[in-house]
């Protein structure tokens, strides 16, 4: 990474700490921070330096029973009665997004283009630690509202990594399955099945080297994965990969 890239990252850390990023940018920046401890340290340093600005607000005693209300919300969230705001499952959008088995045509070109652009930025800014293996492509998967849900980094040796950048509700009896479309001839190929939206290593079958603008997506499938070997459930998020020129 060049000095100019580093300077740009430092400036972005400032924007993030001051709350000047959009929610999407902030979610992506948080994925960068997970990969780059120096970036996380820069943000933490700014948070600490600017903390006096928070401490100057006049304190306001919490209303009676506030802690109990927080604990009730945590319990509700754990039993699945209170999906996090913006959680995808069970929303109207989710049922509209039923998987399109033909994988084409793509009606939301604009959304996919945005995901591609984010992947480019993420790759550029994230190419920090040259000592660790670098992915060949990075795909930012957006839901149908254009919000980033997950990032897939494909290393090309039949290994990919998935991380989630916002909550994805996985109802009991279902799994998340990750897919890619190496070519129209091959059709969608499963990269792996996840029981929860946790960062995971995906070990897919032997596939052609991932290409720029290759499609990646995650769908909600019956527990254990699609029974047909093709996506059958609603699309949670999808995006086009951005090749990483390293």
């Amino acid at each position, binding site marked *: 990474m060049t000095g100019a890239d580093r300077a740009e990252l430092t400036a972005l850390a400032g924007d993030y700490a*001051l709350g000047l990023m959009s929610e999407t940018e902030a979610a992506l920046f948080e994925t960068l921070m997970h990969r780059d401890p120096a970036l996380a340290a820069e943000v933490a340093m700014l948070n600490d330096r600017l903390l006096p600005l*928070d401490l100057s607000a006049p*304190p306001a005693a919490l209303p009676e029973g506030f802690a109990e209300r927080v604990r009730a919300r945590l319990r509700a969230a754990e039993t699945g009665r209170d999906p996090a705001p913006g959680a995808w499952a069970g929303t109207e959008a989710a049922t509209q997004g039923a998987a399109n088995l033909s994988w084409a045509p793509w009606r939301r070109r604009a959304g996919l283009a945005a995901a591609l652009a984010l992947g480019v930025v993420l790759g550029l800014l994230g190419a920090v630690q040259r000592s660790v293996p670098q992915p060949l492509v990075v795909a930012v998967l957006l839901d149908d509202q254009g919000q980033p849900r997950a990032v897939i980094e494909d290393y090309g040796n039949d290994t990919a990594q998935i991380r989630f950048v916002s909550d994805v509700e996985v109802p009991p009896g279902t799994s998340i399955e990750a897919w890619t479309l190496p070519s129209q001839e091959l059709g969608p190929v499963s990269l792996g099945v996840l029981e929860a939206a946790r960062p995971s290593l995906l070990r897919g079958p032997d596939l052609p080297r991932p290409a720029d603008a290759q499609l990646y997506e995650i769908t909600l499938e019956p527990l254990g994965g699609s029974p047909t070997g093709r996506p059958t459930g609603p699309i949670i998020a999808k995006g086009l990969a951005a090749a990483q020129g390293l």
Partner: protein
Amino acid sequence: MDDQDRNRDRVLAGALADCAAGRSGGIDRLLAVEGAQMRGVARRMLGRDDLADEAVQDAMVLIWRKAAQQAGGAGSARGWIYAVLRNRCLTILRDGARLASLPPDDLTRLQEARQDLIPDEGWRLLAGPGRLGDCLQALDDHSRRAILMAHVAGFSHGEISARQGVPLGTTKSWIRRGLASLKECLS
């Protein structure tokens, strides 16, 4: 950091460790130590008690979920907690649908009150007694005001540039330049 701050951060780090381990006592201790200040920060930015309470509750849920991730991270527990809270406040401020549910008069009042949070004179009270105030004083007026509008009042780049009557790019460079000087002054 003086002794009192160090002690406080030890207590907060312990409370975060409890949250990370799934012990809800961590929530009680965090709220006992920081709850009133957190509500104060949220109320200053959001202008309404109900929105402030919503922001603090949301922040506590996030802190509970992310505490394990934060453990071992750089920076103080306290700095992180307020960063999470401010992010939640911003989410509420930028949620057009959420704000549209407020009576129009309230919304107008809320926006005006945010504007008044950053006075031309007397802004120093916002920085407290430490060095941050001196270093902010050393910045040019435009940069200082833009940084305070973002951090204290939660204004976006676009809102700041509109209020300062300059192009977006100018606001961005004022903020970046100001923050770089501020870091140098504080280091």
